[in-house]
């Protein structure tokens, strides 16, 4: 991150803008939830908004918008593994065609 007082002041503006954005988006999620959209739409919207908010926090508050390579590599690896966990699990646990689940014995 830039270190001169000038840049810092510039950053600070950014922080407040992000703060506003986060507030607005929070309002949006809650607002949308009152429309009682079909579940998959609701999930989609909620997730997109959450992703944007998370992105903002990570990028601006946590300075991921300009961080060192090594940090990026660590996070990429982590993301890959996390995804690599959930996908097979979901496929096995729910879409496994060979077991009929939730049948009381």
């Amino acid at each position, binding site marked *: 991150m830039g270190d001169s007082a000038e840049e810092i002041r510039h950053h600070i503006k950014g922080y407040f803008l992000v703060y506003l954005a986060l507030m607005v988006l929070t309002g949006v999620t809650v607002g949308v939830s009152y429309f009682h959209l079909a579940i998959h739409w609701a999930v989609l919207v909620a997730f997109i908004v959450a992703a944007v908010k998370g992105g903002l926090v990570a990028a601006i508050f946590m300075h991921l918008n300009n961080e060192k390579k090594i940090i990026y590599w660590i996070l990429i690896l982590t993301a890959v593994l996390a995804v690599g966990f959930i996908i097979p699990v979901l496929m096995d646990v729910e879409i496994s065609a*060979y*077991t*009929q*689940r*939730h*049948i*009381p*014995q």
Partner: protein
Amino acid sequence: MDKPYGWWLPINISTHGKPIDDLINSLHWFMLALFVGWGIYFVYCLIKFRARPGHKADSTEKHFRLPTYIEIGIAIFETILLVFVSYPIWSSVKNDMPSDSDSLRVRVVAEQFAWNIHYPGDDGIFGRTDPELIAPEDNNPIGLDREGDPNAKDDIISINNFHFPVNKPVRVDLSSKDVIHSFGIPVMRVKQDAIPGTVIPVWFEANQTGSFDIMCAQLCGVGHTRMRGEITVQSDEEFKAWLAEERTYLGLEEG
């Protein structure tokens, strides 16, 4: 034929077991070859290159091709095993469920520490079960609704004694009352975990009569060790006769 159990695979009396045995055996020959091959080289090095007066290590940069080829060979062999041997066997075990018409269909409900075998009776329909109705004392360990459900009237429940006819596919719907068990019949090359809350179909067909062990293969508590069942493979007549016996024993009227 020779004695059923030894220090290697026991006899196989299932129709689908042959390829499994072939896979296990060929794979072990392959492993042995690798091990012996490498082992010979290994021992050779240990002797040839031992430290001794006048012998100096040769540190010049070298590159050997052969090992790379061997590694590639191993990779290819594994791929072949996976694609052309393991996959077909597994998919037939998983997918080729026999149709109800030409197969015997039973439910097996595992519990601590026994195997409940549930035959649908002559109507071929399993009676409804309900945990509330479970009453081991009057031969109803799986909560069969004998009063409520007409289909249940002729159902037969046998504990740890699994009789079925030879040369006829058997389809088992496997489930568990309490914890995870594993339905293992070594001579039948069958093993399937029984997961509570799910029903998992298993099929097999015996090509030889006799009686053998069912072993529980998943730790299920203090009685895991004695959770032993017995399969009795018999001719169709003998099987029918046995069913009749059971029916009278349970005091059921003819279906």
